[in-house]
């Protein structure tokens, strides 16, 4: 009790940055394990590349130089040039913006959508649950790449349609997860207490249930990002995602495929970029799982 007197002065300021403290704890935890540190570093690099793309890129990513086609990696062209003489390094750097856009847009669609579907189904149960979960089942039963293909084929190939298509197929697992989480504590006393205080179902879901589901949904979203990147690259590779001349990594592999035997650098570097970013997301997701585990939280 003697402690409470001295802390009382600091208390009004401590209420807000509680989230910041938690975020710092999580980052500190992540840097402790080498694998998640690797994920963090690669994603940090990706972010820096995307933010400062025009400064980092050595050439204009769209500028063709037909005198210099299929130039092998050299000091002038760090990763070589493609069949139209464009610098591959600069295209990769600019392509990181496209990758990040895809990830960002897919995440802000998929996260809330899955969370709402799952928590509503889990909290109400009964008929609501049945209807919502059957809808989820329908989306879940399509192979995601095939549904994306059908969608893009119907609406025409473009980056935006690819993003919508990926979002459409990526939310059901999140909804499943959120529902399962919700069901484990919808009978908890603190939910009953909220009901006794007169809270509406919407308020209970938003204030009491969503904060409990958020960690596992975040982990799942991070792990999902690798799949999202691969699907986007796959769609780009099939010519259904980003259209030329956009420097999308999957599309770069697709066009480089024809020259693969003689000019290995055309496919290798975009391939390595896709590999390292999806690996980084997977490792980060694994790390987050440990960091956000409620038991670990209590220990801190």
């Amino acid at each position, binding site marked *: *009790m003697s402690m*409470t007197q001295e*802390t*009382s002065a600091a*208390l009004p300021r*401590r*209420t807000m940055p*509680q989230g910041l403290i938690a975020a710092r704890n999580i980052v500190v935890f992540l840097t402790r394990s080498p694998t998640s540190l690797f994920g963090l570093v690669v994603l940090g690099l990706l972010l820096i590349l995307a933010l400062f793309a025009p400064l980092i890129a050595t050439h204009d990513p769209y500028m063709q130089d037909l005198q210099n086609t299929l130039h092998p990696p050299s000091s002038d062209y760090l990763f070589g040039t493609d069949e139209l003489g464009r610098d591959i390094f600069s295209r990769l750097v600019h392509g990181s913006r496209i990758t990040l856009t895809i990830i960002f847009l897919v995440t802000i669609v998929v996260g809330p959508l899955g969370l709402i579907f799952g928590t509503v189904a889990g909290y109400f149960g009964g008929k609501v649950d049945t209807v919502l979960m059957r809808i989820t089942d329908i989306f879940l039963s399509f192979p995601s790449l095939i549904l994306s293909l059908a969608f893009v084929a119907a609406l025409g190939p473009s980056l935006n349609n690819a993003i919508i298509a990926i979002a459409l197929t990526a939310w059901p697992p999140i909804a499943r997860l959120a529902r399962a989480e919700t069901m484990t504590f919808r009978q*908890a*006393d*603190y939910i*009953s*207490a*909220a*009901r*006794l*205080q*007169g*809270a509406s179902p919407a*308020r209970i879901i938003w*204030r*009491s249930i969503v*904060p*409990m589901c958020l960690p596992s949904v975040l982990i799942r979203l991070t792990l999902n990002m690798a799949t999202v990147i691969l699907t986007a690259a796959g769609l780009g590779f099939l010519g259904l995602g980003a259209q030329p001349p956009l420097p999308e990594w999957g599309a770069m592999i697709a066009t480089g495929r024809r020259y693969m035997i003689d000019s290995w650098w055309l496919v290798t570097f975009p391939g390595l970029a896709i590999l390292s970013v999806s690996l980084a997301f997977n490792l980060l997701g694994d790390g987050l799982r440990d960091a956000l585990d*409620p038991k670990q939280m*209590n220990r801190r």
Partner: protein
Amino acid sequence: MKPITINDLCITFGAVQVLHNISLDVKAGECFGLVGESGSGKSTILRCISRLNDSWTGDVRIGDSAVRDMEVSDRCRMMQMVFQDPYGSLHPRHSIRTTLEEGLRINKLDDREGRMIRAMRDVGLPVEFLDRYPHQLSGGQRQRVAIARALILEPDVLLLDEPTSALDVSVQAEVLNLLVRLQKEKGFTYLMVSHDLAVVDHMCDRFAIMQHGRVVEVLPREAITQGGATQTYAQDLIGASLEYEHAI
């Protein structure tokens, strides 16, 4: 101060009838105990009154109005509940401030800060605890917060679902004394579930003994020490409890 009247309360879960025509009268300002073995339906009665469980038949009134006809906000301001497990009844990711403020926001009460401070003082917790999280508090402190959360809406009736059984003995006494003091100060009507006759003896004016979803007998507090139970089961229960106490 409002009385609770229960008439013919029945509830069935699947094929099992859990409560058989329960009728009880709890006087205004009284502390009424519900005792019985596990599964005898004590907690279910509380969940029916509070409408956490709504598939019952019969009639439950607080004061003059039936709980089923009340507006949600009126019901919340009239009756609150304290749960058994203080580790499960506070939201683990809400600070005490958020927990207490939630009810005030929902019911659109003014002077939230003042009410929270008064509620914390009422349950004997330092006001600085408002910014703590449940995992930073001990079991007894958490139960005090749970009581504060119930108090803050200024109800007339408090439903207590074994409020001390998850706490160790010294803390039990603290919380029980707190409840007794609050009743004296604010004139609550308590309906308390317990399986501990010592607790009932300490707190309650009258108590009902339950078995298999039926009320066996309603007895005054003195019946525990002086005898006075007429039903065999009631005599057995009280006898067993006294024997157990002598043994320790």
